[in-house]
């Protein structure tokens, strides 16, 4: 019988939640790397027992962990992220040039085919790659060296490269997103990159239609339809039908189109999930009611999913990497909150239940569907 393994990164350690395919009874393991910020934990699609974790700390810097046995045991691997060539500058909060400085790894994206190859999205924004299971990391400098680099600037959470999407139909195509620079795409395996922000409109920057400077929060792609992308921007939920070349808004009837997460049903490429958050100055659900919104039409028409979710006095946030879907026949949806809850729905969002309720603030959620 199939099973699922949910990988949870929190503000004070990692946790692994496992269940059989019914997804009713859960075993909770952890904390792993107790006391550390675990920004992201993700398994290799090519070898589910190979899992990587980004362990960071204001005291001890960046540590990268690797497991070869599905998260039972871990070993530290390489943690040296040295920018390639000249450091260059980006724009600081006060508008002055500021040199790129490595701070932490936000996102790990294992290759679709090789367990030893992983991409890392870091702060200050750059993309790195290992091809030896994490021992050594090398920058793909074409992104940071892109002509607009000096105009990139940090969002409130830092200038982080937080989203990496590998196109299963084209190994040379990768999508990434940076707060607050925007979305970029390479079609040559990371050698060169171009901004893909046409159609984004951000009132909070001097030119709302600028080529770069947009605060993209997250992007999702359905693997069977890699040309279609969905984006949760700072404000606005967006859709592109041409691999990011052009975007249009699909916020439709959402009660607020601010939010962080966005994801897609495993078997229905037009079924989307977001968690509307009140505003950029009030990072919690409207009226204290936690609601996932689902669109079955690729956006614009949304329905609230509330069964099993707290509908009063709930003032948590759901961060950008904290939602995931499994690929069981009845698609499971998972998300974690800054209040330490991890919720699961075994029926595509109709009904929810908490797997755990009192973890440290959840930074990321990934799920592995195991045979």
């Amino acid at each position, binding site marked *: 019988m199939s099973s699922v393994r949910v990988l949870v990164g929190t503000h004070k350690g990692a946790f692994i939640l496992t269940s059989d395919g019914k997804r009713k009874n859960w075993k909770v393991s952890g904390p792993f790397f107790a006391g*550390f910020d675990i920004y992201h934990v993700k398994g290799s699609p090519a070898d589910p027992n190979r899992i990587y974790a980004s362990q960071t700390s*204001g*005291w*001890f*810097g960046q*540590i990268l962990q690797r497991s070869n046995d599905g998260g039972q045991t871990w070993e*530290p691997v390489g*943690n*040296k992220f040295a920018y390639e060539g000249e450091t260059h500058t980006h724009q600081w909060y006060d508008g002055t040039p500021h040199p790129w400085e490595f701070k932490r790894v936000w996102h790990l994206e294992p290759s679709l085919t090789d367990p030893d190859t992983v991409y890392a999205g870091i702060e200050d924004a750059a993309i790195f790659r290992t091809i030896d299971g994490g021992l050594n990391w090398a920058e793909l400098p074409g992104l940071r060296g892109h002509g607009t680099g000096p105009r990139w600037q940090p969002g409130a959470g830092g200038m982080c490269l937080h989203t990496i999407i590998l196109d299963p139909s084209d190994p040379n195509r990768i999508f990434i997103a940076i707060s607050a620079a925007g979305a970029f795409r390479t079609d040559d395996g990371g050698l060169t990159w171009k901004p893909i922000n046409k159609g984004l409109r951000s009132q909070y920057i001097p030119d709302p239609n600028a080529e770069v400077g947009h605060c993209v929060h997250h992007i999702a792609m359905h693997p069977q339809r890699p040309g279609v992308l969905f984006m949760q921007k700072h404000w606005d939920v967006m859709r592109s039908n041409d691999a990011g070349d052009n975007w249009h808004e699909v916020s439709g009837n959402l009660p607020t189109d601010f939010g962080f997460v966005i994801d897609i049903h495993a078997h229905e490429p037009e079924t989307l999930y977001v968690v509307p958050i009140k505003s950029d100055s009030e990072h919690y659900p409207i009226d204290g009611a936690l609601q996932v919104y689902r669109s079955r039409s690729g956006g614009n028409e949304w329905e609230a999913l509330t069964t099993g979710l707290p509908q009063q006095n709930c003032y948590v946030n759901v961060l950008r990497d904290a939602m995931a879907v499994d690929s069981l026949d009845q698609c499971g949806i998972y998300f974690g909150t800054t209040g330490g809850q991890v919720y699961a729905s075994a029926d595509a969002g109709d009904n929810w239940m908490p797997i755990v309720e009192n973890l440290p603030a959840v930074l990321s959620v990934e799920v592995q569907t195991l045979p």
Partner: protein
Amino acid sequence: MTAVSEIRVELPQHLRTLAQTGIEVQLEVAMPITIDAVLDAIEARYPMLRGTIRDHVTHKRRDFLRFFACQQDLSHDPTDTPLPQAIVSGVEPLIILGAIAGG
């Protein structure tokens, strides 16, 4: 033949966990004994600690770590300054301490 000395170093809890050591490690360090020399020896013995005490490239001490020895804070001394004789002789440990900050 290079003269060496056996140095005692106390590590903060999280680094002990990472390196799978006890509270104190003992290292043979070539003279002259400086913070640089001790950290070189630690990182050679425990490669997983590279980058956690000082920056990989610049070797700058991480902001929230401190170097204490013989009831002195040596954190702001040049890292090539010879350490006190009590450290060199192994009577006192070099203490690497996580600052009390944050939550």
